[in-house]
């Protein structure tokens, strides 16, 4: 899917925001964000159609890794910007790679991976090729 310039800019801003939050709140996982009120049977896609579309176009969407895996439950442990630890269930080794090889303020999967498709960003695909030498492929 070709993304619009606006979406590219939004993704960059989100990445920057994530980076900033990482500096201020390195242990973001302990603090849940507030999610707007929702009906209990309301599905994420009803309000987040754009993100769902992008997610569906990626591997995680195809494999049905649903929103709650990264973002948590809106009422209990919701976070807007998932921490790296939320990837550990399936990508333990890749998380370890980052923990070992990146400074604390650079420990985010989304510095190199697109939001929602989770594919490597164009720049990371070039500059960081081979970063994950072990772990799940």
């Amino acid at each position, binding site marked *: 899917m070709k993304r619009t310039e606006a979406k590219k800019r939004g993704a960059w801003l989100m990445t920057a925001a994530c980076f900033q939050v990482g500096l201020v709140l390195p242990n973001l*996982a302990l603090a849940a964000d507030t999610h707007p009120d929702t009906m*209990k049977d309301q599905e994420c896609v009803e309000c987040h159609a754009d993100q769902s579309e992008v997610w569906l176009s990626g591997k995680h969407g195809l494999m049905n890794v649903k929103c709650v895996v990264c973002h948590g439950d*809106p*009422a209990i442990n919701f976070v807007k910007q998932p921490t790296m630890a939320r990837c550990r*269930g*399936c990508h333990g080794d890749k998380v370890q790679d980052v923990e070992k090889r990146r400074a604390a303020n650079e420990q985010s999967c989304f510095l190199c991976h697109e939001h929602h498709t989770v594919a490597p960003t164009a720049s990371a695909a070039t500059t960081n090729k081979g970063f994950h030498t072990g772990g799940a492929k």
Partner: protein
Amino acid sequence: MKITRRQLLKYSAAVAAASTIGLELPRPARLLATEADVDTWTKGVCRYCGAGCGVYVGVKGGKVTAVKGDKENWNKGFLCLKGNFLPAIMTAPDRAQQPLLKKNGQFVPISWDEAMEVMANKFGEAYKANPNSVAFYGSGQSYTEESYFMNKLFKGGLGTNNIDGNPRLCMASAAVGYVSTFGKDEPMGAYDDIYHADCFFIIGSNMAEAHPVIFRLVNEQRQRGAKIIMADPRKTLSAKIADLHMSFIPGTDLAILNAMAHVIVKEKLYSQEYLDKHLMFKKVTDPGPPPKIEPASWDEYLKLIDEMTPEAAEKLSGCPKEEIIMAARMFAGSKGTMSFWCMGLNQRTRGVWVNNLVHNLHLLTGQINRPGATSFSLTGQPNACGGVRDAGLLSHLLPYGRMIANDKDREEMESFWGVPAGRIQPKPGLTAVEMFQAFGKGEIKAMWIACTNPGQSLPNVDAYRKGMAAEDTFLVVSEAYHPTRTSELADLVLPAALWVEKDGTYGQSERRYQYVEKAVEPIGQARPDLEVMIDFGRRLMKTIGREDEAQKLLAFKNSEDVWNEVRQASKGTAYDFMGMTRERMKKAHGIQWPCPSEDHPGTVRRYTAKHGDVLVKKFTPEAEDVSFYGAKKDGNKATVWLRPYKGPAEPPDAEYPFALTTGRQIEHWHTGTMTLKVPELRRSAPAAYLEINPVDAEKLQIKNKDKVKVTSRRGSIVLEAKVMDVPRPGLVFVPMHYPEQMINSLTNDAFDALSKQPEYKICAVKLEKV
């Protein structure tokens, strides 16, 4: 323990509704499982489906706090949506924590000693009146050691065969299919075949939701160029990656499979060499019971499939003949074709037949016995294969391929167990549905249900719930949770240790046995089922005057003792896993049987010496490569069965014009006792619904989210409509997980005459907008 089901539902609803009303409920300060702190990691297996993903379980402060996939296991570190949230099942608010006895309709806490005495006395009284008036209903989720022990206690110690397991409801047709075609149960192939296949034939399985991590491997292979044929009346999430999606009228797949065989034969796509060397043909001349079986000829087979042309199959099934022809050519012409199926084939009144017909395609084309070419039945529960099918926790089986009806097999097990000759009854016991029918009639007086939820999962469930609640019988339920739709009907509830609160062995779909290490202590007063079973067994044997015999028969101290006997029971059989010592299992990331010695690496592919099955030469020294050594009486040949078309027991008609099918969602597992307690999963999939095709919805003026009353000949349920182009017109789908909306009130309990597995997957319903 005072929590009621109503209270539990209120709790779950409160969590989900918190944001709805803007109320800041006290947050449990719960992190996602993947981000919690961990002191130690122990190795185990996922608690859910039969895929058997290897996991590491993170523990901190004596609690399970995290989970991650085992990258050295077949799943390469990946888990599905459910697996990621496993820790939350351990601390759900409805964990059963102490024994409860029903008195005057109320559950009253009692001690374990009292519970065991009451239970032994009730079973003892019933047994003394009639040995066949006691029963045990086990589970494909129990550890092998637990299932093996109960099998030994009932068949060897008590001399009754009224012991069956819930795999009767999910895997029995696959098991009988394998035995009747190849001589012994269980797939010959493995997940490794996925890496070698260049065509997948997926029928009656929504892998994307029911077996997501296996589906992931299939999708990877598709990206390497493999083609995917998907035969399903629903355009499921799995169908998204299909190159050819064959939609058909539910229950007509026997016609399609025979028509594919027709194309294969007419276009000479079969392997004459394989046919001559390794195949024989059989037919049923009298359906019985018992059925009369005779050898058939190639010409008789040709006559059968001659009649089922692609055109004839199209007329019956609604599947275009062009697609049937294309599927047959893809199947036969690939370098390696791997079939997958699951409940869509097994939960049928012709479940065994349709299993045989899939095997027929592999045998005719020679798409078998080499990497990437195999017929592979997917399994629903983590230990349906290892603990129930292999260990023999079905009323017609004895451990490791032995049969109750076989004199030599009974003698062998009587000798092995050291019980008097003639102790094991020669007549198979009651199967699951028959067992609950007998319980309802009061013919069975005392029943123990462990680690399963038939009060929700039986077909036509309301009919059986009445019997389970009856006051003149005694029902014991061992469960990790209470109340469930079964434990609420019990006379005695025993709190069970869950998953890594105990240790034991799981055996998944590809014959891979894996040890699950104990990671934490059981919650409250919960105890491991094996410990309770040994305690109960000794007390019951004393009650019936066999105390001395029990000293030797039940002389186990822990699961390792039982495991060592289990290995011995497998020795010399076609399952032989003597080499899987407990020490070795602790280190390994699963080992596939046969594994006859400690230096044996395990067997990826059975029945082929060339690809590593050492038992081929042991049982058939003369074999060059392939030998179906479990089928000794058939000269070690596999069987192509003559199975004509036969439709479902209850097709739609004028009064009930829609076919109803049920199945899984990726968020939930079985009756939801575990996954519905995980807030994230409940949030993602909170309630049952009716999936209906837009064409049908328009005719009935049903819109999205309308309430619709669904009625079968057995019951009614009101559900919210989801109008979507997933089920074909004429078919509706309802997920099976929800205790508040039990779709099994509607499903059909008619069962397969050969496997005794019920036809959950098709019944007739009518719809009414309310």
